[in-house]
């Protein structure tokens, strides 16, 4: 239904004079329909978002203002949880781990995704559909299954990775022992799962770039590399921003991989080498029942961090590609 339809006068005579009550009702309904129906159409999202998105957030905030025992009593304490958070070493440790693993996983991941997307975008590539499908498969596999399998690959005693490294004379690495070994292993898991996904989004973005731009560039004597750098990348900017923000949101919420990597231990390594913010929140709210309010404060801190980083990402990515 288009807006112009309402403005067109009724085709048969003036409605005010001859209209029967039935016609008038129908006319009123049509007007009502035009005015309010769009809201109804978009309502399901907002209703669901309200119930499952907004409401829990507000409720979590409410929890974070309390000394909240998950299966016991609650006492209002204002912002005490937040002030405690600021001087909590383990919280900042979790923040450092989360950002560290985020950078370690995301930077190579996006570079690889860009490279793969560019390959798949070549018109002369054979069996293109096959490759495009196969690259997405890791993303369909359950994350817990991925974490379990990679956890085995990265075992100290009988792991395949250590066996492979031993061929080059490298001693068995205890992957869960150091921060850098554990971060590497976890980043590999994340990248295995998400590189294909990002490749497809970037590929879709690349295909939306008009071909005549390339033709014009080629006419001006631009090499393939030059075309990629000066045509593809700038035109890909909106897609790239989208991918970066999506990776940020996902990366900062890292939970299942590091948790299962150390056999479900909520504190990560023996000295919390790979405990993420999400895990720290879980440790406080579920493992330590009486600190659920504190856990809620961690959840809100995480939310704010994601907002800040997403905005930063948006600003930086926009500039740099320009």
């Amino acid at each position, binding site marked *: 239904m288009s807006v112009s339809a309402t403005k067109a006068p009724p085709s048969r005579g003036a409605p005010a004079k001859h209209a029967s009550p039935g016609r008038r009702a129908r006319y009123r309904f049509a007007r009502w329909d035009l005015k309010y129906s769009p809201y109804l159409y978009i309502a399901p999202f907002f209703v669901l978002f309200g119930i*499952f*998105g907004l*409401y*829990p*957030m507000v*409720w*979590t905030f409410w*929890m974070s203002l309390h000394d*909240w*025992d*998950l*299966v*016991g*009593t*609650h006492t209002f304490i204002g912002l005490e949880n937040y002030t405690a958070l600021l001087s909590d070493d383990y919280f900042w440790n979790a923040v450092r781990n989360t950002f560290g693993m985020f950078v370690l996983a995301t930077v190579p991941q996006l570079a690889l995704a860009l490279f793969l997307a560019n390959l798949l975008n070549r018109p002369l590539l054979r069996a293109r559909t096959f490759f495009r499908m196969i690259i997405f498969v890791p993303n369909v596999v359950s*994350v*817990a299954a991925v974490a379990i399998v990679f*956890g*085995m690959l990265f*075992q*100290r*005693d*009988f792991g395949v990775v250590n066996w492979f490294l031993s061929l080059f004379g490298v001693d068995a690495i*205890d992957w*869960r*022992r150091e921060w850098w070994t554990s971060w590497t292993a976890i980043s590999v898991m994340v990248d295995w799962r998400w590189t294909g996904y990002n490749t497809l989004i970037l590929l879709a973005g690349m295909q939306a770039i008009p071909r005549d731009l390339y033709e014009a560039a080629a006419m001006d004597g631009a090499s393939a590399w030059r075309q990629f750098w000066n045509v593809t990348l700038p035109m890909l900017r909106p897609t790239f921003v989208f991918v970066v923000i999506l990776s940020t949101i996902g990366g900062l*919420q890292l*939970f*299942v991989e590091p948790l299962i990597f*150390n*056999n*479900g*231990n*909520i*504190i990560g*390594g*023996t*000295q919390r080498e790979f405990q993420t913010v*999400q895990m720290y*929140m*879980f*440790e406080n*709210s*579920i*493992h*330590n*029942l*009486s*600190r*659920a309010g504190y856990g*809620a404060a961690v*959840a809100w801190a995480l939310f704010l961090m994601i907002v800040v980083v997403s905005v930063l990402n948006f600003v930086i990515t926009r500039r740099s590609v320009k």
Partner: protein
Amino acid sequence: MSVSTRRRRYAAVALATVAALATTTACGDDNEGGGDTGAKPEKLVVDTFGEAGYEDLVKQYEQQTGIKIELRKVAQLNEFRPRVVRSLATGKGAADVIMLEEGILNEFKLNPNNWVDLAPLVGDLSKDYLSWKYELGKAPDGRLMGVPTDVGSLGICYRTDLFKAANLPTDREQVSALWPTWDKFIETGKQYKQATGKAFVDSDTMAVNAVMFQQKGADLFFDKEDKMIADTSPAVKAAWDQAIALADAGITAKITTWSPEWNAGFKQGTFAATACPSWMLGIVESNSGPENAGKWDLAAVPGGAGNWGGSWLGVPTQSKYQTEAAKLAAFLTNTAGQVAAFKKSGPLPTNLKALEDPSFISYTNKYFSDAPTGKIFGESVQAIVPTHLGPKHQAVKENAMEPALRAYETGQLDKAKAWEQFTKDAATQGAF
């Protein structure tokens, strides 16, 4: 109840979303609401962790009563606990009968209102069980939160084939004689290591647990008023030092208990011995697999009797069929039930008649080279004087003590730093 169900539900929704857990919580089929309807249920749900040995028993109960029993098993306590917590916090999805290990039972005692007082439902059973075990099942307000299932009397599981290869005796009497004390145990470990070049035990944390629980009647991380004393408790220090000595001897495989490497280690013979509370037998068996049947045996633990672990069966107040659930819990823990569970998976009876039952005493465990496990454990169980565990024992042990010891074992922290990390974390983990 201090919080209305509605508010608790809100809290749950918030939490579930925030946690962004992929796990489904949709198992509350017929458990919504709660409160005893007195009706005869079609189905009762039982939640257990580890190897409780209830598989055959519930079938038997189904035949007797016509009530269908759903047995839900979780391998590890640290996965099991969050599930119970979630169902308590949301007021939904809890099983009708829940197995409560001593660590988490103490924690749930802080809010006893979530649990049904079983005493009026099952009658006076106080004379049926080891009295200390029965008493521990009571909450501070006097209600009977759980009926006793098992205790974890200590032993040492060892591989006869690996001992033989190291020219150590293999007969269980002789092996037990090798190590009256933990120091002798370490000596034996050194001999083993010298002969084979391989690790003797899985990790230093196995010793810390065993030694802590051997401190008869002592306070561990908490005193009798449940005040945190991890940094000053002599029992904790004794266990800590013993574990450090084990690590210093270089005879541990430095494997985290319950990890996939640990599981694989049983099959691969990465270590030749480990601490075996009675409930551990079932776990050793399932980890080692049928191909290693007859290679394991059971010897006495150095340093005297002790209790590690052991559980109770409780009924949450949200169960709709509290009376029937209590009956089922009583059935699973009565004399015949405990003997059957023991034969199936090794949890050691706490029911006095079960401990005297001839079929229990004469029982030999085929998998463990026909060791007379009934006799070995049955004798030691009488000598147990339980230690005092505070409400957060499990959290302090799992997230403060063991990580610090592991960090020492793998050389990440020196002795002083490890102790510092432990006592610092104990204070946070032990807060309630």
